């Protein structure tokens, strides 16, 4: 049975390649044909090259395994966009309900409104001009159909190199509903909040570096582990700001970093006291 399915898939793939001319015509493929990524790309490069190119430079295209057209849109040429626009198509890869990336959004006001109202939204509408009362993952990260999901996220939280480009991209999203002044103040506050978090991480890092001159790796195991936890708590601050979850900015973020920092100092203090 399984072998049969694979044979079918291979045949279809072969057909897709052979019938490339058919797909490149105006008519879309039948909704019952099972598609593979190369076929999608082949046709859509001619139809709307922009989104294919956007996808090519996104994190989705360079990750392993690659997140391609069928990962989000499915294999049947039917309700392609409206299926992929819903949060579920992102959440299935981006972690469980309690994963900070997901939970910081789902507990925010945006996430709550989405949870309450998603069944009443018309998902065939594109991600622009406040077509949705509350934004889902795609509304912000693929605004105006931008298939490069990476333009609205930051990759190195310890540096502010990406701040401007990410803020510019995100501003265009927020202003569908929020005033320009609110957006400006919120962004600058988020950035300052993240910088406060970075200061805590750098402070811990500095004292651990100092201690490395005096103590062995073994003695510093605990503090180094705690420093890694700080990176997650810093990420929570970032996610809390980006997804507008007060809980992630605060309880999962700043005071958690305070606790990490003082526990690192406490252990370093203990090492000194043991030594003297």
């Amino acid at each position, binding site marked *: 049975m399984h072998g049969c399915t694979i044979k079918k898939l291979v045949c279809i793939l072969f057909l897709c390649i052979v019938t490339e001319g058919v797909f490149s015509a105006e008519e879309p493929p039948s909704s019952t044909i099972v598609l593979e990524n190369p076929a999608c790309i082949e046709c859509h490069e001619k139809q709307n090259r922009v989104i294919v190119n956007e996808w090519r430079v996104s994190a989705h295209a360079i990750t392993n395994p690659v997140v391609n057209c069928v990962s989000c849109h499915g294999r049947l040429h039917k309700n392609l966009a409206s299926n992929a626009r819903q949060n579920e198509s992102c959440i299935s890869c981006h972690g469980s309900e309690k994963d900070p990336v997901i939970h910081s959004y789902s507990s925010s006001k945006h996430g709550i409104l989405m949870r309450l109202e998603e069944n009443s939204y018309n998902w065939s509408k594109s991600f622009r001009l406040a077509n949705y009362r509350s934004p889902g993952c795609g509304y912000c990260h693929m605004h105006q159909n931008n298939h490069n999901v990476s333009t609205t996220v930051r990759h190195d939280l310890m540096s502010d190199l990406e701040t401007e480009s990410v803020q510019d991209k995100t501003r265009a999203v927020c202003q569908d509903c929020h005033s320009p002044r609110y957006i400006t103040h919120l962004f600058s506050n988020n950035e300052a909040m993240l910088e406060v978090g970075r200061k805590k991480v750098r402070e811990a890092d500095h004292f651990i570096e100092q201690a490395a001159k005096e103590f062995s790796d073994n003695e510093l195991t605990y503090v180094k582990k705690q420093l890694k936890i700080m990176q997650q708590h810093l990420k929570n601050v970032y996610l809390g700001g980006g997804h507008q979850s*007060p809980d992630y900015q605060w309880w999962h973020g700043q005071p958690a970093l305070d*606790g990490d920092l003082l*526990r690192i100092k406490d252990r370093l203090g203990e090492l000194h*006291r043991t030594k003297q």
Partner: protein
Amino acid sequence: MNLKTPRYVWVPLIIALVTIPAGFFYVNWSKSGDGAGLYSRDWSPEPVFAYWNPKDFYQSVDTVVGEFSGEQCLDCHRGVTPGIVNDWEKSRHSQASKKVYCNDCHGSNHEQLHMPTPDVCSNCHATQHKQFVDEKRFGFPSHALAMERALDAKHFVDKPKAEVTACLQCHSVATKCDSCHTRHKFSAAEARRPEACITCHSGPPHPDDETYFNSKHGQIYLAEGKTWDWSKPLKKGNYPAPTCAYCHMDEGKHQVANKSIWKFGIKQINPLTSGNEVKRKQWIKLCTDCHDADWSAVRLKEMDSERKTAWNKLYEAEEILKSLRSDNLLHPSAKHRPPYPMDSPDDLIQYEHIGFFEGQASAFYNVSAIERDYFEMWYFDNLSAYKGAAHGDRSFIKKGHDAMDKSLDKIKQKAEKLRVFGEKEKNNKQRKTPEELWLNGEYTEYNRQHN
């Protein structure tokens, strides 16, 4: 006044006449700084605070000049911010026989726009607003006093303002109605859903979301809630299972603190005062919408007993810390670390703040590790157990109490270690002061200079 009146009458009278107005003026003066609240002279707000505490901080700008009618606002904002116009169009404000337009709440002069406060909403929703304001008489914790609570918290005043923005995002429930009735739809039905509460009522100190959804009440809601008619008022017979608002805002009364007995679990209370007996009867009456009165009374008794167990554990830990403090064994001690928020290094008496009445709520940074352990035991483990008990989620009662036991063990072991270090250093007649590590560092120094 008869000059023969004895001294013990007129001396206190004169003192009272001087000190009461002086106190009044002092409080007014201390509230008149750049910030807001009792410590307003000690800090300046971030610009974004205006959106969560508009009464104190919002200022309009003159980017657009002119006076506009409601329809004119809509015409322009359909292009500028279509989301809020779409929202308004779905709201009852747009469907009322006499429409409530943008300018009815924000003003017509674009150079002097204001961010609507509860006072603005009270022009039409007077009953709800009156109930809401009246909640203040029940004291903390409450919605109506939430903003004051945040602004007067010593850690809020002490920390860099960009760091504590999140405080205002939730505590703005006192200063804006859209925390629950989100703009610009302002739906009553939406605010009745439990999800409307959980953006703020979640996380380590108040896992109301998890404990409610884990409970039988919450399980019924999760299974069936989508089919319920949320336009109905929160009254007996209208909902098959209770939600946050059904119990805490019964019959739609805009108060959550009026039946609060255990005060969030943050301090030990006497559950048997006459005031608390009245509240207990109110709870039982509410539970009898579905349950037997005697059965309900037993559930509330169980909460008394859970709280007693929790406080026994907390006081045991508190005693350990206070005894270390008496023996000068906390490391670093108050003299060798950045001061407790709003204390000064120049204060004559420096001490470690331990326990609710000494200001435990702000003792989560600038403290030693064992004090932080106690903070987490009190604020995270204890409150998890409390929320589990209050919402009928046994898994959280167990989780919270297990975590408290673990924290208590950790505190005992750490205390032992501190005593050994203390003993050793006393015998060696040396005690290395830890200032270098605790008073310095990028954040620590930045925090000292910025609030």
